[in-house]
């Protein structure tokens, strides 16, 4: 157990934004209701408008224009950070992304870059209902020339956000809502809890977890963001109850998709489960399954299993929401169903 007091996600993000503002004066931040004393719906921007009133701007409720303004500022050399209050609302700005922000650099033959960061919370399990609970990362997966970064509670959240601001590419920075209230658990002596952890890839690393210090494993689970704690609970349950040992890969860079950590793990374990909080069809898991079977067919002894939300809407009522979203039990069952896992 950690001896130091771990900061919660919201605190890390807030402190990182303060540090970024202190460091560079080309950064501007805008979004809805982000001014003090309110400081944003999830308090991430708390204290920034008081400290930097000319660089922290509140905006009308018009995400399309927010994306447009940010694109213009980025083209003119600023580093805008947008806060989209709920990830569900990115759909309102996607035309700007698909037909402008992601294309300008190539359309103008590399003479310009669009270094903007769209920070937005995704995810359910809070009873916010159909239009404030979704995980829409998969809408961004197929957009070339952007970067999608998803923080998890075990990543260095501050370093990820700092890298995103420094990135010349347009970056979507996904913050699962549960991340805000949970402690940012970082590896100590190469471990988080009882799990050994390796970190690989820059600037948005993948974390690989093993219950056996990478000596044995009967499956790999690849996930990201807010599903990581669910997957870690499932993997821990399998260890404690059945001595089934799995590896877990938590990606932070979803786009462009780089799966070296997954290939390395699958080479050790021979089986793969994907886990995401978004709906199943055409998602993160589908893309990874396709890539892994192409590149590592001979390593697989069983078909890739996907764990995801049901293809439907997310109800407000908590028991119904729980039915819709992927659970610890779903992950346990998917792993247990793989050939060669049950001894």
């Amino acid at each position, binding site marked *: *157990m950690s001896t130091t007091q771990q900061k*919660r996600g919201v*605190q890390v993000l807030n402190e990182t934004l303060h540090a970024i503002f202190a460091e560079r004066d080309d950064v501007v931040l805008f979004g809805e209701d982000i001014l003090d*004393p*309110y*400081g944003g*719906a*999830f*308090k991430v921007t708390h204290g920034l408008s008081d400290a930097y009133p000319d660089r922290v701007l509140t905006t009308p409720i018009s995400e399309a224009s927010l994306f447009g303004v940010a694109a213009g500022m980025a083209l003119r050399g600023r580093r805008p950070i947008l806060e989209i209050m709920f990830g569900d609302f990115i759909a309102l700005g996607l035309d700007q992304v698909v037909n402008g922000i992601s294309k300008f650099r190539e359309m103008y033959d590399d003479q310009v870059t669009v270094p903007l960061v769209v920070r937005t919370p995704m995810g359910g399990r*809070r*009873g*916010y209902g159909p239009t404030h609970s979704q995980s829409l990362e998969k809408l961004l997966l197929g957009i070339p020339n952007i970067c999608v970064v998803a923080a998890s509670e075990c990543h260095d959240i501050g370093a990820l956000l700092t890298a995103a601001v420094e990135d010349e590419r347009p970056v979507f920075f996904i913050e699962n809502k549960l991340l*805000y*209230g949970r402690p940012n658990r970082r590896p100590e*002596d190469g*471990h988080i*809890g*009882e*799990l*050994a952890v390796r970190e690989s890839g820059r600037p948005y690393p993948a974390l690989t977890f093993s*219950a*056996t*210090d990478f000596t044995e494993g009967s499956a790999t689970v690849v996930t990201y963001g807010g599903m990581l704690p669910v997957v870690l609970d499932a993997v*821990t349950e399998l*260890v*404690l*109850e*059945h*001595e089934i040992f799995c590896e877990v890969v938590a990606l932070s860079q979803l786009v462009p998709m780089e799966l070296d950590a997954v290939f390395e793990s699958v080479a050790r374990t021979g089986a793969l489960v994907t886990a995401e909080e978004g709906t199943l069809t055409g998602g993160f898991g589908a893309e990874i399954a396709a890539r892994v079977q192409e590149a590592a067919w001979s390593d697989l002894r069983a078909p890739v299993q996907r764990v995801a939300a049901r293809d439907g809407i997310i109800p407000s009522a908590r028991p119904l929401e729980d039915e819709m979203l992927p659970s610890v039990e779903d992950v346990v069952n998917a792993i247990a169903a793989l050939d060669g896992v049950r001894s």
Partner: protein
Amino acid sequence: MLEIVLTREDANTEYALLAEWLVEDRAEVTAGQPVCVVETTKATVEVESPGTGTIVQLYGEEVEVELGTTIAYVAETADELASIDARSEDKPAPKPPAGDRKATRKAVELAELHSIDLSTVEKRGFITEKDVEALIVAQKASAAPAAGQVLAGVSTDGVSLPATFELDEGVGVLDPAFLESFEHEAFRALVPADKIHALRDAGARIGDGVDLGEGSLVAAPRVVIEDGVRLGPRATVVCEEVVAIGERSQFGPDLELRCRRAFLGAGIWGGRSVRFGGGGHRDPWATLTVGDLAFVGDEAFVNVCRPVLIGREVFLTMRSMIVTHNIGHSVLEGFENRFASVVLEDRSQIGLGAVLYAGARIGAEAIVASNSYVVGEIPAASFAIGVPAKATGSSSHKLSDARRLDLARRMIDDLHELLALRGHAVSAIEEGDPRGFEIDGTRVAFTASYRGGIDAPAVVLAIDVRGDVPDGVAVLDLLARRVHGSGGVVLDSVREFCRKRGIKLEPGPWSYPGGLV
């Protein structure tokens, strides 16, 4: 005493910032007075005191507090203030969070089986079955040389070893020349009296009134058989080092006792076809001890390749089974291969057909239900049942004095009725205390406290006995389970009746075959 609790203002957050206290800790506050400023995601609010009294603040300023948490008390009286102070002083240490569990279920079960304290395991990461196995191997390696072979380091806590276990090693040693020429079949063919003569002449210690049944065999380099021991027909006793049996112990026909060292106590009652032995009975660690007054039912089987300690007054009922080893497929292929002792502490009871697996330890006065399968330890005084057996309750009930008296009175009435139904001439003589009947000129009566005053010939049951017992009177102290005085067939019959209610009296024998009942 009043509490100030941070209430939830909106759905987005789990925490609020306790920004500032508007009053000093321990200040006097009045109802409705603002005492602190709390910043939530939606608003900055002042929290008012719910009443008048002394405020006891539980948090400082500029701290984030989980919503729903008590942040202060308002003590309305000095007593309340004192109780708040007392409470904060003996606040228990916080429990480790549930996520801190680190040993797997298999590891925990194996550790319990071997009494290993997992909190002593130092390991980064999960503790698995493999880790515990390694620990067991290491423990065995370090424990083996010190423990010796006779009890192989098995704890005798809760087990009353028989007196025969403590006998000097020189007692009953047979002449090597006799052993050299000893032939099993020839010995079996001897008439019982000649067997005893032969053994005595060779150096064995054989007491008075010993009965070695027809066709029986006793073969060991050291033989001690105390007074009144009876082994039924066709008994086979073959021990590599020693067999010692305490006075008045008896076994029915077809006993088989094969073990390196067997130490049996006094007053043991064994049924027919009892078998001690099985694979490994000649192993260096093959030691059997059975305590005084133990009961071993028909066809019980006790494997003895590791020490088996059976305590005093243990009931090992018919067809129950004790195994001290298990050999399956190759250990190198991951199959279990287990050798471990089994211990039954004093007065434990094993139900019909129960199986005690290598490593089992049954606590004193515990009961294992019929057909259960015991792996590991069953706590003392518990009732355990199942496959594998789990303790589900207590093995006995607490009796009030009144209830005990009522049960004892009912016994004498039941005995009276039983003898009448058997066709004996029985007449009631007393109502109240003492109460009872007369049979064949002997009075049989129950009195709560025996202090004399009952004429001979009589058999008296009592739960509190003081003073001398005159000739011709036998007093059964039912709680101390002792017989004072002596008597004939009536006393034997009463004792037998008591035995069937679990009341075994000393001095023995406690088993009386036949009689009036």
